[in-house]
């Protein structure tokens, strides 16, 4: 399953990062790596982007970008 399909309130664990280059680097810089546990907090008023909580801090990301993070729902 990919991260963009997660609904608000869902908690999941990152399996794999399929993003490359800039997007991949940016995700890694913000602390997305295999084994990370994260939670989908909410979607924006117009659905996109979505807000995530990872290890105590909050990050917003477009669904289109979240497609490149493979997760496992918990």
């Amino acid at each position, binding site marked *: 399953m990919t991260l963009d399909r997660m609904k608000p309130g869902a908690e999941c664990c990152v399996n794999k990062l399929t993003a490359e280059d800039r997007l991949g*680097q*940016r995700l*890694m810089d*913000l602390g997305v790596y295999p084994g990370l546990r994260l939670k989908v907090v909410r979607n924006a008023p*117009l*659905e996109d982007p979505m807000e995530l909580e990872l290890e105590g*801090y*909050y990050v*917003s*990301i477009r669904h289109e970008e979240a497609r490149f993070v493979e997760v496992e729902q918990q």
Partner: protein
Amino acid sequence: MKRKKALVALAGQPNSGKSTVFNALTGASQHVANYPGVTVEKMTGSYRHDGAKVEVVDLPGTYSLTSYSLEERVSRDFLLHEKPSLVVNVADASNLKRNLYLTFQLLELEIPVVVDLNMMDVAERRDIEIDTKELSRQLGAAVVPTAIKTGRGKKKLLESIHVASRSKQVCEPFRIDYGSMESFLSEVEERVSAETAIAASYPSRWLAVKLMEGDSEARRLARKHLLGPDEILAFVEEKRKEFESKHAEKPEKHIAFRRYQVADTISKSALKRQTVVSSQFLSDKADRFICNRFLGPVILVGVIYLLYYLSIVQGYNLTNYTWPLLAKLRSLTESILPNPGFIEEPVIRALTLWFVDSINALLNYVPIFFILFGLIAILEDSGYMPRMAFILDRLFQRFGLHGQSTLPMVLGGIYVGGCAVPAVMSCKGIPDEKARMATILTIPMLNCLAKVPLYVLLINIYFAQHKGLAMFFISTVTLLMVLPMAKILTHTVLKDKESAPFIMEMPPYHVPTIRGVLGRAVQRVWLFIRKIITIVAAIAIILFVLLLFPGLSDERKVYYSTQKDHATAKFYKKVEGNPYAEHVQGKNLMALVIYWDKYKKAKMTAKGKEAARAINKKFKEENPVFFKIVQPKKDKDAKKVTRAFKKVFSARKKLLREIKKEKIDNSFLGRLGQAMVPFTQWAGFNWRVNVSLLASFAAKESSVATLGALYQQEEEGESLEKRMEKGEEGFTPLHGLALMLFMALYPPCVATSIMIKVQTGQIRWLIFSMIVPTVLGIFVATLVFSGGNLLGLSGLQAMFAFYGLALATTIGTGFVKNR
């Protein structure tokens, strides 16, 4: 012995309190500039410690030191090439693990590092306890716990900086164990360090890691400094492939993941206690409302409204208090300049006053800017900005823009009455290059404050019956032109610009400090003044020359001179035999003109009876005879002179106006306006309109002022609306509508152009931003005017038709897929 000046760089992730540390270290001695060649802000400052001067450079906040973003490149280049004696790494103690990710990259550069473990107070409130000794031992670098906001730990930090930047002892550099990649790294390192040239300039292990990461900057360095670069780069590429096939993982990912694993281990061993509470408990609660589906947009509109209300409305009210100061400056200048003649004005006087007027027109905005910049600083510091972007990103993204385009758009005048200068300035924070450029280039098409006077003038003449409707039309139609334009730009000229992922941290809310907010507001206003004044001055002089030269022909000069003699002769005939007549002979007549002018002006600005009495007294003392003429009371002879003088005075005024008009008609700009008629006639602009549009280039406010000079007063006190209506009998509401739309699309003013140059870094974008709106403006005006005429539409019908067209275009382009 003179000690060497120490250079300290501040590095840290965004929201780690870096700027607070910078302020605490350097106090008031700060200086803002741009990094050479790029638009990233460079803050420098200094302080003294033990009699030695320490220079501090605040690097842009970054999560990492790759070469993917400008800020990161700038930070890394500074660390590599400027060779600071020390890096102070400001880290958020409540977020240790992620912050270590950057710390490792700094340590790998093999520059002495002091880790400032900041925001300890926040960490303690969250019940986090860190063993700094253990952390320091593991990192091989000094670790100083601080809570700089409250001043805690500052002394210790200064001491550590002092010690670390003086220490000569070379300690074993910190190494991350990259696990399965170690053997690859040592092979690459060996190849690289065989080259003495590069090994002396850059740490070889760092270069090896960067090359394995596939970092483009590292490859560039290698190409520049290595002897056989192609061979080594091919070798590295081979190793990268080998690693990937062996471990089924991209080398750059392996490196990043390993860093996190090590960060995890180290932070775990240093953390004495950590309760698993969400660290942003309160902020998260607030976001339930602020980012709520229904409440979020309402709050956003409220915040935008408040921003407008406080800066534009209240700031404008403030100018009521500051304008008299500027007016005083003008009259002060006037008083030291040579006096005008009866019909001829000394060039130095005309030029200086024109110059002061041009500068004053911009300085008048300072109160508005001050409030605006203060409010922006509050928005930035409080953490609301990322929420704005979060709420509106979807909408803007459809047009190739970015969630963070919200603030610039709001400042530029998304409704009416913004200013493009701070708007363009605030584009700096947009990480997506493509969206940033599109925002910068389209902002001048929004409704800035200076466009409003012309709108009001035209609406009052041609849409007097539908004022509200017409104002609503022009206020909102600009956004409907900006959005499609942004979309078109991002699909054409900007299509090759880099586009960045949106991913953005939503930091916890902070209460902004008064000092931080005021400091930033003052700094930015000062930057604006410094940048603008010189260039505006230059343009003002050029326009002056274009408007006043070549001037009158000798023939006309003779004509006006006889007119003058005629008027004065009439006056002398009337006062013949009057006891006051001897006092107004020859030069004295002109002296009386100036005296009269000064007296009337002084009376106009005087407030209350006391002040009026004081002015009377002063003028009486200065010249008792003239005062009699100005205030004849019951003196019959004086009254006679007064009456005659009033006639000659207004005759002079009329002559001056005629001369001014003729000079403009004859001027280079006037001729240009006439030469442009073949191109502009289809848009309904005659040469007078052309001249006023050309003269608005320096500042758009002058469009109305120039029209004022072109449409002369026939009777005293006649409004410009009346004069223009009379002066242009053939004008219809369609003319008015076309002109309004052209003004909406008018190219950016001088001040904005300079900001565009500063923010894009290239003169060609400045030229682009001038030409495109002009062409588009002529096109739209022609469409409305000629199209409306062809279809026989009334002004109002044409307005509705155009609005419908703009709306349809906006919706249509919104559905075109982004590339």
